[in-house]
């Protein structure tokens, strides 16, 4: 493969190995060893799912978006409303949330995925804010500023009660993450996943070889909607309160940061990013939230400045000169 045309790792396929068991062993270890961290652990798992969704469109499809919280929030509100008005049974709530978020992804993606770059960034920002404002103003249903409360969830499979410590919630979220991860891996390793990466690397070539680019992107966007909707639903069912912050630009930004921290377009990127971000945030929030924000800002700036490789390249050039002599 010509690495000057495509980055060398663009088409790396994932193969199973013993290391793939690590996240799940870790997840169960937390459950048995760190009882006090189950609430935080559940949030981490939920955010991993939301990041996977963003990683699908951003990392694999190369679609830059500033409004990804819309999917998450819609999923959360749908699951919350489902539990209040339809049935407190959690599994059907998951499906309902995923379906509505996916539908939103399909409808908005049908228009959005024709746009590129700056226009797309601004449109996703606007769509995200429009959904936020819609939920804010439709307070008779969503609770507006006060949030949606009074969500009660029936025992999982009719057996496991959602307890105060969050043991059921944690394992429930971990189970959903496991299934979502398997599906996600299947999708990104499929021919569809390859085509998506092709779009990311060179959209014009994909068009020229007859790949239906817009269709691929809309499909990915719809799938991302379903996945983030699942994350939102888990959030609503385990926290049992849904606030406007689940639709906020802040969440969109945080998801973006987590995906970037973990590595854009990497299968385990969301795991790494969400775990680091949320654990450090949790520690720092106890210490000082302002310092945390300052630090994360500096990390973001540095991550971009260092990836320019100017220093490393200069060092490399210098080395070449030396070796030539």
């Amino acid at each position, binding site marked *: 493969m010509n690495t000057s045309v495509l980055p060398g790792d663009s088409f790396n396929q994932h193969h199973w190995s013993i290391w793939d068991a690590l996240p799940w062993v870790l997840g169960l270890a937390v459950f048995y060893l760190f009882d006090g961290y189950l609430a935080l652990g559940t949030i981490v798992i939920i955010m991993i799912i939301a990041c996977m969704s963003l990683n699908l469109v*951003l990392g694999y499809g190369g679609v*830059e978006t*500033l409004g990804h919280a819309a999917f998450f929030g819609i999923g959360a509100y749908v699951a919350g409303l489902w539990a209040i008005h339809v049935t407190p049974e959690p599994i059907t709530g998951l499906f309902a949330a995923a379906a509505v978020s996916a539908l939103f992804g399909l409808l908005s993606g049908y*228009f959005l995925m024709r*746009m590129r*770059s*700056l*226009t797309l*960034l*601004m*449109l996703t*920002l*606007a*769509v995200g*804010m*429009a959904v936020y*404002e*819609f939920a*804010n*103003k439709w307070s008779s249903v969503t609770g507006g500023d006060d949030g949606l409360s009074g969500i009660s969830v029936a025992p999982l499979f009719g057996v496991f009660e959602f307890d105060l410590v969050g043991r059921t919630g944690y394992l429930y979220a971990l189970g959903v993450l496991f299934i979502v991860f398997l599906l996600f891996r299947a999708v990104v390793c499929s021919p569809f996943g390859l085509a998506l990466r092709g779009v990311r690397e060179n959209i014009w070539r994909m068009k020229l070889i007859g790949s239906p680019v817009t269709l691929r992107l809309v499909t990915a966007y719809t799938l991302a909607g379903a996945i983030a909707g699942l994350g939102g639903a888990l959030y609503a069912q385990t926290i049992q309160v849904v606030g406007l912050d689940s639709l906020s*630009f*802040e969440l969109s*930004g945080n998801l*973006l*940061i987590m995906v*970037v921290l973990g590595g*854009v377009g990497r299968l385990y990127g969301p795991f790494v990013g969400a775990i680091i971000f949320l654990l450090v945030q949790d520690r720092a929030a106890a210490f000082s939230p*302002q*310092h*945390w*924000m*300052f630090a*994360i*800002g*500096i*990390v*973001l*700036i540095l*991550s*971009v*400045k260092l*990836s*320019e490789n*100017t220093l490393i390249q200069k060092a490399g050039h210098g080395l070449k000169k030396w070796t030539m002599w």
Partner: protein
Amino acid sequence: MGFKLFQTIFALLFNGIAYGMILFIISAGLSVTMGTMRVVNLAHCGFAMVGGYIAYALMDRLGLSFSLAIPAAFVLTCLLGAVLEYLLYRGIYRQTELKQVIMTLGLALVMIASVNLLFGASVYNLNVPSTLSGNVEVFGVGLSVYRIFLILVSSIVGLLIWYFVERTYLGKKLKAAVDNPGMARCVGINVDVLFSGMFAVGCGLAALGGALGAELMPLQPFYALKYLVIAVIVVSIGGLGSIKGTLLAALALGVVDTFGTYFFSDIGAFLIYFIMILVLFIRPQGLFGRRA
């Protein structure tokens, strides 16, 4: 009845225009950076916020007068913009949009955190001098003197921008550099310096808007992200890189928003997002923008 309605509309129009002019001053720099330098600058409203806080600090902590603090905020933020352009932005002009988003988001977070550490989370207003406070009565409607002052100052700034771009030699160079940077370099125009200057002045203008408009948009740490969306809406409706478009979009948005909150308070800001989405679907380059 008829006169009453006229008075209401007159008052709303006046407030809408004042709001729109502030939006214009804040957004003008963003339109320039996004339109001509193709940089997604999520930290732009951070500069407006920094300008507002500098003015506040100069007046409240150092006891400077309003008429000195505002120009000082403009100049200091210009300098800050120039320094940050050299240190941070210059490297990302040719990077992917994702990197631009990440870096400028990081910068916005640093600005928010710094302001929060220095000034705390409380909301600040600028103390307007007594000559500018109070109301004058026009058609039986009490108009705020300060907002009349806002409209006047913003109009003068707008005229200055127009004069600079359309009537000066430097403005011509700037247009050349924007239209075709390569060719401009060939005829000896220092495009990099021109662009950094433009960036710095854009930051300064945002600071001016942030300081003057603190009465309408109170200073708080999350200012940087809170008003970013509205600035982005202004420049994308107006068309990236078009000063005229930014002005018209800002005025329209200010008026629509003011009327919207008065007459249809249930819809609120939703109307504005809807208009933006509609405009961008029909004309992705904005109303006055040129196709990239």
